[in-house]
């Protein structure tokens, strides 16, 4: 490994291609931590947004008008406002309203940090789309199937959990994938509220080391790889879970 770093250092001196974020231990360390933060952020947001989608779609089948209305307002608000402004709103406007805890340094700190707020805002944003995606899946489940489950004496939640949802997820998986890929890409916006994810760290490095082009190329390569791996995994899942008898 050291030989490689030496080679890159030589490349910098001899050809002016500044890959300092690889060969310098400090920069490499923070870049790797940034990548790890991005992966963590994406994974947690994906999990939460799916949960929101499932619960939201379930609430929409409810007979309570208030509940349905609340879900409607939630969806319309998050779908029709910019995710970046939402993030600022959450972090700077709502954040300080949270109860404070005194941290180890004697400073009272709001309960959630920037990572948590990024998770909340991104999950709610993607969740609004997921609710609609799941709902379209639920609606596509054939009435006869639900009636059959009903006649077997299953409760409404049981029907949703064991019959409708498994079918619905399979039907709406392509749309869901699309939204989740978008969510993974939208994690870059956490940059704005100082979550040390990949873009944040990269911009720190290119400001300090003035190697914008090299850093950009590295950054794009990383995101293409990340999204590529995710898309590949999801396409496999899609194929495995395909409902027989639908589509070509």
């Amino acid at each position: 490994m050291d030989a490689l770093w030496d080679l890159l250092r030589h490349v910098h001196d001899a050809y002016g291609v500044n890959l300092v974020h690889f060969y310098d231990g400090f920069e490499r360390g923070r870049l790797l931590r940034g990548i790890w933060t991005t992966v963590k952020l994406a994974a947690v947001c994906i999990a939460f947004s799916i949960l929101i989608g499932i619960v939201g779609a379930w609430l929409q089948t409810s007979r309570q008008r208030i509940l349905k209305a609340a879900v409607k307002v939630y969806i319309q608000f998050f779908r029709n406002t910019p995710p970046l402004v939402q993030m600022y709103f959450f972090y700077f406007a709502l954040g300080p309203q949270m109860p404070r805890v005194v941290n180890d340094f004697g400073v009272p700190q709001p309960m959630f940090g920037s990572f948590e707020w990024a998770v909340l805002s991104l999950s709610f944003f993607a969740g609004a789309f997921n609710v609609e995606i799941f709902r379209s899946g639920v609606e596509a489940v054939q009435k006869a199937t639900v009636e059959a489950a009903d006649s077997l004496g299953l409760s409404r939640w049981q029907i949703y959990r064991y019959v409708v949802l498994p079918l619905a997820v399979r039907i709406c998986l392509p749309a869901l994938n699309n939204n989740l890929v978008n969510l993974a890409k939208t994690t870059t916006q956490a940059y704005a509220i100082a979550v040390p994810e990949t873009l944040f760290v990269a911009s720190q490095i290119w400001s300090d080391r003035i190697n914008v082009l090299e850093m950009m190329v590295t950054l794009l390569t990383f995101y293409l790889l990340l999204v590529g791996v995710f898309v590949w995994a999801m396409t496999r899942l899609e194929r495995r879970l395909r409902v027989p008898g639908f589509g070509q």
Partner: protein
Amino acid sequence: MKRLFATLLACMAGAVISAGPALADQMAIIKKKGVLVVGVKTDYPPWGTRDASGAIVGMEPEMAADVAKRLGVKLELLPVVSSNRMQFLQQGQIDLMIATMSDTPERRKVVGIVDPVYYASGVAILANKKANIKSAADLKGKPVCALQGAFYNNDLQSKYTGQDLVAFKGVTEAQQALIDGRCVGFVYDDVVLVWQKAQESKWGDFEVVQLNEWAPVPWGLAVKIEELNGPWGKFMADVTADWLKSGTLLALEKKWVGSNTPWLVDATAKAKK
């Protein structure tokens, strides 16, 4: 349609490649187009800020206006932030940068920093009194707010805090984060922190602690690096020298900041000799 697209692509490719050196003699170009474009800050009161009408005002915009007056051209102020100001100058989006930029050897390799320099500031932290910060060594393992693109960020993180800084694009966000308790202190230029603390009663629970780990660093106005030794760079060097000699900068500092910093008083005295 296809041809149009091909042309478009070729243009884009060409644009990326031809980003290198531009034409010589910026001075003649500025005079010819009749407009001087200066990059200034809008989030750095009282050196550069917006008023409610949207106009950019402050000490540095006023310096920029003086340059335009001397050239007999119109002035256009373009807002820049720390993380993009040097690129803006390199790409030629601005003719001149007066954007509170500290003078460092690395930066001198990228942009043409004009001598003499016009201002200076040290590094300080606006810290929560409860955190009991006395020097940079006390910052170990603590969340510290900062501004993206500041020259001391790298040192601060690698030598002192040992963890990622809570760095924002603008001063507003960093200050808000400090008030909200997201960090123990906001590391920034001492002159600003002192001024801010004096302005606002909301900083009652905070104190400005000078971080002597970093010596005071001059602020330089900058032109494109190719222009530094050309007519444009020389012109700006003369203008800055005159500002110091005539006491213009002292007067401007008094007007906007309210008091004079020892560095500027010294620099003016030296220039007069």
